[in-house]
């Protein structure tokens, strides 16, 4: 029966027969990526602020994050698996580690880019260190930080696809199955297309948020 259908017909058929399953794996894939990036943001953003206050440390920290980034994702998964075992949490940790560099680097760059005169006037108004960070630096750097998170998210979605090899589930499961069955072209596409779709949509969405957060483009503040 399937032999009579072309690849696209097979793909449509696959979507209609297994829609719920694909959706559950899509959601799982998305959650794994989001959690990894979220934790990286919780660690990375404060770290970025901290190293921008201690200029000498910045090179070290960013250097270390750079080293993490150079490890191939499959190797990283395997290394972490030795310590953390199989499953979802190991993949989340991997996404976390890969997300650190873009988030730390962008936070650092964002804080550095804040005009020193603005900080001085803030100080002149009697703002405390915390107020300067929270009310001046953070809003001004936010759009650049967001660009880092956006970058991390796209990388994270890709890394999660490999997580299938340590039993985390996600759309990688569907892709791997397509590779294993005899005539699995349609199944591979059924896993790969939603993965790409997820990456593009999150990129667009975060890009939109990034633009919204850019104070120089926000008319309300300027006027």
């Amino acid at each position, binding site marked *: *029966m*399937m032999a009579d259908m072309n690849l696209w017909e*097979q793909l449509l*058929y*696959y979507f209609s*027969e*297994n829609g719920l*399953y694909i959706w559950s794996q899509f*959601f*799982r894939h998305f*959650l*794994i990526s989001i*959690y990894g990036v979220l*934790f990286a943001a919780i*660690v990375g953003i404060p*770290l970025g602020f901290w190293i921008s206050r*201690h200029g000498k*440390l910045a090179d*070290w*920290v960013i250097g*270390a994050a750079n080293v993490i980034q150079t490890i191939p994702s499959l190797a990283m998964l395997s290394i*972490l698996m030795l*310590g*953390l*075992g*199989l*499953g*979802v*949490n*190991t993949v*989340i*940790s991997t996404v*976390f580690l890969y997300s650190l560099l873009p988030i730390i680097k962008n936070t650092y760059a964002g804080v550095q880019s804040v005009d020193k005169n603005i900080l001085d006037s803030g100080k002149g108004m009697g703002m405390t260190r915390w107020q300067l960070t929270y009310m001046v630096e953070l809003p001004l750097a936010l759009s650049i930080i967001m660009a880092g998170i956006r970058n991390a998210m796209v990388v994270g979605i890709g890394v999660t696809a490999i997580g*299938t*090899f*340590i*039993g985390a*589930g996600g759309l990688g*499961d*569907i892709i*791997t*199955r397509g590779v*294993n*069955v*005899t*005539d699995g072209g*349609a*199944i591979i596409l059924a896993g790969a297309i939603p993965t790409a779709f997820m990456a593009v949509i999150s990129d667009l969405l975060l890009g939109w948020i990034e633009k919204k957060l850019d104070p120089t483009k926000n008319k309300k503040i300027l006027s």
Partner: protein
Amino acid sequence: MKKVQRIAALFLAAILLSSCSLPGLGSGFNEEGITITGGSTTEQQIVGYIVEGMVEHYIDIDAQIVNNLGSSSLNHQALIGGDANVAAIKYTGTSLTGELGQDPITDPEVALDLVVEGFAAEFDQKWFPTYGFANTYAFMVTQELADQYDLVTISDLEDIASELDAGVDSSWIQRAGDGYDAFLDTYGFDFNRVYPMQIGLVYNALQAGEMDVVLGYSTDGRIKSYDLVVLEDDKQLFPPYDASPVATFEVLEAYPELNEVLTKLKNTISDEKMQELNYISDNNLIEPKVVADDFLKENNYFESIEVNEEGGEQ
């Protein structure tokens, strides 16, 4: 000093991550729950989801399934290391020579006894009764040829073998123990010509009439779709690859009901049924999970099968 703090922070975060479970992703992999390893082939995944479905139906727990573990040894390591506690499917022949490191045995009952004892003694794991199917090497012919010469067993081929072309798995030709040489010794006849080919291609070659008899895997879905006839291995050349679930004694102690659940599956899936399930998944593009759920619903989760305390059927 600061760097040490940073590394410590990273480490802490990682440990924190590994120990907690996050909303939406089910419980993490831990000693308390039931974690089932499936596999990478369609058959292994279908059986994995059948076990998962059974466990969730009878035991009030959200069972986890781990698929796509690259090899049977990785699968084994997952159970030994405590990352998982139920292996949905293991084959006697594979585990006997693999995990237990023994010589292949062709008698299915002896092989089964050996793995049951071996897994209990060496790994503290219980090898359950077979599902009822075996994924082994098997000679097969078209329905037409079988009808014409009344073929049931491999020995039936003897009289006509000199006119038949055979397509076989290329690695089988060189295999010691159950390979081509052993075949000649055991059955005492040869085919007209033997063509080594990739195992995935033999079914099509047979159906297209390019081969008269081929050696393939006995539960492949294409046997059903092409209406092929599997010949019985009457002289027991091929070691048995009967499929069974395996669970650690630890998890059986934590969930005593699990013993009954896995025993219920004894002899519930025949070779033909497994061929059919593989066929539905491979040929009709239905995901293994969907195939497994349908199978369980169709059989009402085998609720009618009673299991006594020793784990046998009543």
